[in-house]
């Protein structure tokens, strides 16, 4: 039976499906008996998803795009 520490160390590979069969099932066994680790797993997953949603949608403002266009035509750039 694996402990919480081992369980948390394995989360990255567990979510990437990179664990061997045996470790994978002992981890799932641990989850069945350990609500705190299930809560940890869920919030670990959510951390990635909400950060991606929040930071992954950075749009380049039109003003910045036109500044860049100007810059690419400028003497400073060509020389």
């Amino acid at each position, binding site marked *: 039976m694996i402990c919480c520490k081992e369980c948390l160390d394995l989360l990255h590979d567990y979510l990437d499906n990179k664990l061997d069969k045996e470790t994978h099932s002992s981890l799932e066994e641990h989850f069945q008996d350990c609500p705190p680790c299930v809560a940890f797993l*869920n919030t670990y997953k959510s951390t990635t998803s909400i950060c991606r949603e929040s930071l992954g949608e950075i749009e380049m403002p039109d003003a910045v795009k036109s500044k860049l266009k100007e810059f690419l035509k400028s003497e400073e750039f060509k020389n």
Partner: protein
Amino acid sequence: MTFDPKEDKAAEEALVRELQAGNMEVFDQLVERFQKKIYALSFNLTRNQMDAQDVTQDVFLTLFRKIHTFQGKSAFSSWVYRITLNAAYMKLRSRKKDKSVSIDELLPNFNKAGFQQEKVQDWSENTESLLFANETRGIIQKAVDQLPEKEKVVFLLRDVEGLSTEKVGEILELTIPAVKSRLHRARLFLRKKLSAFFDEYRSGEDKS
């Protein structure tokens, strides 16, 4: 936008060959292809529109001047990411402010038997409604800004940009286990930071 990665890579390589042959007319295509990615990563690292704009311009200037030195040892896009990171770090150094805190303080605690020592609240069900609150967005940005540089860059490339572990390794010249370990530490740090926020948020809701 092409969606077949193989085709996309071939188009990218053809573009680079043209540029290396001196056909700078196609530089606009390079700009079109990379400007959003360069800007987004610069913005996430500097958290400032002016700085991200400067970094983006610097990157294209470097690409324009150094395109002939690209040897194709790694993917061209990895080279572009590396130049972007260097330019962003130069910008940050010129600002000289370091808001990061020690990551070890925020790693999980265990007792001798290896059980978790703190109460773990499951806030994963509540993030949908919270995400669009500006406050939440601010908290997420602040938490990411506080990550130490080594972990932050891995987190931004892997989890925010969605690049593969292998690609991140190539860009940062790190081994796969090193990328995984930094990513895991970053996620643990952010989870803890967000937990503190969501716990407070929920206890505030209970009172009202």
